[in-house]
């Protein structure tokens, strides 16, 4: 199974590559005043407004470093009905994919205390890699804010 790796601070995380539509370069986003802090704004992807979430801000409360390796992951966010919404995720060091067996990932044992989107971990020589679940990334109220609003105006 293919995973896309990224970093939050010095720790490594992966997303299921199936959920990734594209990796885009870092680009300017239109800010959304009043939105939750992790929502950087909205990027215009081929004319479709796509909310941009900064994963460094979600986890660490600071924005991702503005480097060439900081990229935008265009993820498929499961929407209502069968449709998919697109969610743009900004993360550091999006430069690598890895192949791992999903069975390599084991529960951390501290699920109760960690956010819902942080999944099981797999280990390698450099430490642990944690699986991030896109579908659980947004708190309900943020999800409603980002996607209901788009639907209402459409």
């Amino acid at each position: 199974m293919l995973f896309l790796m990224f970093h939050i601070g010095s720790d490594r995380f992966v997303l299921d590559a199936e959920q990734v539509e594209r990796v885009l370069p870092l680009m300017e986003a239109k800010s959304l005043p009043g939105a939750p802090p992790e929502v950087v704004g909205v990027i215009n992807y081929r004319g479709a407004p796509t909310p941009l979430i900064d994963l460094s801000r979600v986890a660490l409360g600071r924005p991702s470093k503005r480097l060439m390796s900081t990229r935008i992951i265009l993820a498929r966010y499961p929407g209502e009905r069968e449709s998919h919404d697109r969610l743009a995720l900004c993360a550091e060091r999006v430069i690598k994919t890895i192949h791992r067996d999903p069975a390599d990932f084991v529960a951390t044992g501290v699920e109760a205390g960690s956010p819902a989107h942080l999944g099981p971990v797999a280990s390698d020589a450099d430490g642990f890699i944690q699986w991030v679940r896109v579908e659980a990334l947004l708190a309900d109220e943020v999800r409603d804010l980002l996607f209901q609003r788009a639907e209402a105006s459409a």
Partner: protein
Amino acid sequence: MTGAGGGGGPGGSSKAASAEIAGGLLERPLPAGYCEDWARHFAGLESEGAAEDEGADRAALLFRIGDEWLALPTDHLHEVAQPRRTHSLPHRRDELVLGIVNVRGELLVCVSLAALLGISAAGTAEAGERSRAGPRLVVIGRDGRRAAFPVDEVHGVHRYAARDVLALPATIGKAASSYAVEMIAWSGRAIGRLDDALILETLDRSMS
């Protein structure tokens, strides 16, 4: 722990190290106007974008041998390396097999795609004006069997969509036509796309 890291063999750890170095190249600040330019690029209309990348689900490496620009699907493409010395093989004096080359410690058979396709290597008319892109060694392979062939210039990987494909015209070079399966439109010219499976098969047969 470092010993465990090299569990994939010496090749694995050197690959990981080179990936780290390549990743390090991207650890640099954004050039001025980078974010704005990309925002403008991706803000392009859906229809425009579709024409540009959405349908482009095929990829081929574009390279030049002599006067001929060719495209090879990336499925069996392993790497593009700097040209290096070819060591000739004793008692092997055919046109196709040039010798062996050392690509990062692995000895690969170096073949002449020009000989296979019947392209005359004499055509260097274009080389003068495009001399900044030098010759390269392209490594292809399948199922662990790898081979390398020298090319005069590599353009890069070109992504294209099904509608960029043209039928093979009758005028393409005689021998090349058996390996070229279709034409790809690229910046005003049509390039023969080679059948990589057929080439690999032919190489396997000729080397055995």
